[in-house]
């Protein structure tokens, strides 16, 4: 920018109206929430830049010289690079955007610069959604959009000082008028199932969920989290609490410390069961957890599209769950799984590292020598957990050398994953095929929204053993130690425990009102995440199905979208044209014409040369019954037409007089 060239009037930044201060304030509102997403210095530097530019506007500070801006730009880029190791991806990109918005403002001298800052402000607002899409965030961003739009209006209003109400009113009006088109585009814009390019790694940070392996401590992290894992709505009644086992990944490989899933071999045939047995149908809204498995109630007998069932009977989606997904399933809670176990599968389900847990292996062999029958042996094992001093706690002592032996014979305190792991080791050592199942157990029924909420803190691990003639049978060793855990859920099992999650303590302290509010809030969250956040290709298809447009492909959708937008535009155009129609040239003449037409219907036609008063007198002669109203009207008309000061109220009276004339 050369200072010598005279600036065109239109490029000049309106100074007197203070529009720039509004732009600065709106930008401040937009960057605010990034304080929680970005290092403090990013937001702080930008805030300082905003304050400096504000000071320049008020005449307190000089505009920063160019070399300082260049230096700051290089410095900030370097800091971002140092912090994130890259300039791309979500976090580094947002940091750069926020910083550069501040620096751009520092060199804003013209209208064009200020406009760019406003646009960058809109962009900053949208980046907030890449961190959170919760309702409070959405409401805050709505305020930010409103403020930014009002600042944009002020920036374009010229030098005149615009009333605050006018700019905010216009911004609100324009945003309100934009809502119908927004809804149409949101519902009908064709959605793609996957990302356009690789998802940066940093977007997975902070997402909780079951992990793809189980070692001591991996589930206890989840137990501290109140975050929802998924929500289920049942077609009929939900199963009783003790039956609410939500199946996640199944682990059959053990290395002495960690359990892992085997190869993902797809099951040959879906489990079949006699028709008499109860089928539970339900719909799950699964929160994003960045892994591929889909949770299901006990044994699913159907598979959602885009997913497979693995040999160990759990569901795996074809791509990681990165946003809320919804699927409908049918499950059976009592079913014979794998009545015949192949030799390879049997060997895998008995596999134990030779040197792992020697004391446990000895104990199991001792049981085996006393019990021929597998079921009797299992009862003995469960009895062992029940009768020996085992405790259920979320803060067990650390297990280091051999976690299974140490747990069974020394610590004797732990929670589901310890019990499940130790139990499966004992079973395998005794020659009974067994495996670990992870998932969730329980859930909280929300009567308001009619759905079951399962939180991360409901995470659970249990065992399955294979018995001749009965297939895989669920055995939950935790139930032997703490039956309340299964019957009433984790909150009952842990009541009074200091290791209890936050939510539990809160609900205990605040009582029923608090609980009610929590129900409400979660119901709103449920619909918000189900219908707004999870609105992807599946939901879109479902919506079209409901509207009877199930067979619409993307071309059809675009056509429908354009057509609906066209309808909205036409409606707006009609309203616009009606409200901005040219005013009637002479309203008085229009009223008089109505008067003449009314009389003409009664056979009293005014001659073109006849003055109004003469015409009225003629009517009075010919039709005496009309004399009074016609004379009154004509006198009023003449007074308005030729009188000194036309009074708007008298015009209304004239219309009233016209109505009195009945021919």
């Amino acid at each position: 920018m050369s200072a010598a060239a005279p600036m065109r009037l239109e490029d000049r930044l309106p100074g007197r109206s203070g529009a720039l201060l509004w732009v600065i304030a709106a930008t401040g509102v937009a960057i605010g929430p990034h304080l929680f997403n970005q290092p403090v210095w990013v937001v702080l530097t930008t805030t300082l830049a905003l304050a400096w530019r504000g000071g320049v506007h008020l005449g307190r500070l000089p505009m920063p010289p160019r070399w300082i801006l260049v230096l700051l730009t290089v410095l900030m880029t370097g800091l971002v690079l140092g912090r994130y190791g890259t300039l791309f991806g979500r976090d580094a990109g947002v940091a750069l955007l926020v910083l550069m918005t501040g620096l751009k403002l520092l060199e804003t001298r013209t209208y064009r610069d200020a406009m760019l800052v406003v646009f960058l402000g809109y962009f900053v607002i949208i980046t907030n959604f890449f961190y959170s899409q919760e309702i409070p965030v959405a409401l805050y961003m709505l305020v930010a959009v409103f403020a930014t739009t009002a600042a944009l209006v002020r920036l374009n209003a010229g030098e005149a000082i615009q009333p605050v109400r006018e700019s905010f009113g216009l911004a609100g009006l324009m945003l309100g008028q934009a809502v119908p088109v927004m809804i149409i585009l949101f519902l009908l814009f064709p959605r793609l199932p996957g990302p356009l390019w690789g998802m940066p790694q940093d977007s997975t940070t902070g997402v909780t969920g079951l992990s793809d392996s189980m070692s001591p401590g991996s589930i206890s992290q989840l137990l501290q989290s109140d975050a929802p894992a998924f929500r289920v709505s049942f077609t009929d009644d939900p199963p009783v609490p003790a039956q609410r086992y939500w199946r996640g990944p199944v682990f059959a490989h053990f290395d002495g410390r960690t359990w892992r899933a085997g190869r993902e071999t797809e099951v040959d045939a879906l489990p079949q069961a006699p028709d008499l047995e109860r089928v539970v149908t339900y719909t799950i809204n699964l929160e994003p957890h960045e892994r591929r498995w889909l949770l299901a109630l006990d044994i699913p007998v159907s598979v959602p599209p885009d997913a497979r069932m693995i040999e160990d009977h759990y569901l795996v989606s074809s791509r990681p769950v990165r946003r809320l997904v919804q699927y409908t399933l049918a499950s059976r809670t009592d079913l014979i799984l794998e009545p015949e176990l192949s030799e390879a599968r049997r060997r895998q389900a008995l596999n134990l590292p030779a040197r792992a847990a020697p004391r446990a292996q000895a104990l199991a062999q001792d049981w085996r020598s006393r019990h021929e029958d597998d079921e009797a042996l299992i009862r003995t094992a469960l009895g062992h957990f029940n009768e020996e001093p085992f405790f259920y706690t979320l803060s067990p002592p650390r297990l280091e050398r051999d976690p299974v032996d140490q747990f069974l014979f020394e610590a004797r305190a732990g929670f589901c994953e310890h019990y499940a792991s130790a139990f499966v080791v004992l079973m395998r050592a005794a020659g009974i095929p067994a495996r670990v199942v992870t998932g969730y157990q329980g859930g909280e029924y929300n009567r308001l929204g009619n759905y079951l909420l399962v939180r991360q803190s409901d995470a659970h691990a249990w065992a399955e053993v294979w018995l001749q003639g009965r297939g895989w049978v669920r055995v939950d060793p935790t139930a032997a130690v703490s039956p309340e855990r299964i019957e009433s859920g984790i909150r009952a099992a842990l009541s009074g425990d200091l290791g209890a999650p936050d939510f539990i303590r809160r609900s205990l302290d605040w009582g029923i009102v608090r609980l009610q509010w929590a129900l409400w809030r979660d119901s709103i969250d449920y619909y918000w995440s189900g219908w707004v956040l999870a609105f992807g290709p599946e939901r879109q298809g479902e919506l079209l199905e409901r509207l009877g447009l199930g067979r619409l492909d993307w071309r059809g959708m675009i056509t429908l979208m354009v057509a609906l937008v066209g309808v909205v535009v036409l409606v707006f155009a009609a309203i616009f044209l009606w409200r901005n129609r040219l005013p009637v040239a002479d309203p008085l003449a229009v009223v008089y014409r109505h008067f003449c037409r009314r009389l003409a219907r009664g056979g009293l036609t005014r001659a073109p040369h006849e003055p109004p008063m003469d015409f009225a007198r003629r009517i009075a002669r010919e039709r005496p019954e009309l004399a009074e109203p016609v004379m009154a009207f004509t006198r009023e008309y003449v007074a308005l037409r030729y009188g000194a000061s036309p009074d708007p109220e008298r015009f209304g009276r004239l219309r009233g007089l016209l109505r009195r004339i009945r021919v």
Partner: protein
Amino acid sequence: MKALVPDRRRLREWFITWITRRQLPEGRTLRLHRRCIYILPTRQGYTFALILLVMLLGAINYSNSMAFMLTFLLAALGANAMWHTHRNLLGLRITRRPAQPVFAGQTAQFVYTVENPSRVARRGLLLETLDGAPVPFDVNPRGENQVTLDLPTRRRGVLRPGRLRLHGRYPMGLFRAWSWLYFDESVLVYPKPLPMDQAPPFAGQDEGESRERTDPAGEEFAGVRGYQPGDSPRHLDWKALARTGDLYIKQFGEVSGGQIWLDWDQLPAGDLETRLSMMCHQVLQAQGQGLRFGLRMPGLALEPETGEAHQRRCLEYLACFALPAESCP
């Protein structure tokens, strides 16, 4: 390149004339109808569209519902801005005020009254001639505002502002709406007065006796001038109103001083414009001294008279002297 510049300007003028060929010049008042308001995106509008596209790509990539929602909201907002930008001009009533004649070199002022009959304020408006500097203004709801366009004058004759452009990009700056205003208006530019040193101002020879006063009461008709607020309606020139549509005031003045002839042939030699400037100066001098003066030019003689009307007649004659008929009324 240099040769192309005026051509491009003429091309633009021709294009605008072609676009507005249905728009006949207006007498006094013009109302901005939707058919004569044009609209196109501004540079900022295109930038905004580009930013929306980037936002959309981000929303698709992250499958982020709220990002979709905000992108679509902003897209609809941007499209909506088109209506509001159009509405900012729609229905405005522009009335021209009669322009006062000026001497060449002075600035001619064209004054327009812009009325806003609606309940919505019209902001960020600009009025400009095809190659002049824009004048910013706004109009309050149910209010009016006076806009003055300053046009520099260089030559004597008739100056027409031609087509005016009224435009604005309020409220969002994404679109610019504009309209061509075309008034049948002009201002007369008198020659620039040029004092002559060689000859005394009253070189003309006296001819005949001084004229009798036509009105014994001491008041005689002295011509017309433009109406100004506060003038008595008794002196309105009704015939002129019927003829031109503008208000004029009849003036009456008193006669004083002697009688002279200002003679073209008596002027020192020089080119046409210089001599006209000299003559103009003489007319002003004579009027200033309250003389009864006549004007003798090639092909015309104006009888000696006094008063502003006479001076005006003389100056008008000088302004149009030897100019083609179509450029001079």
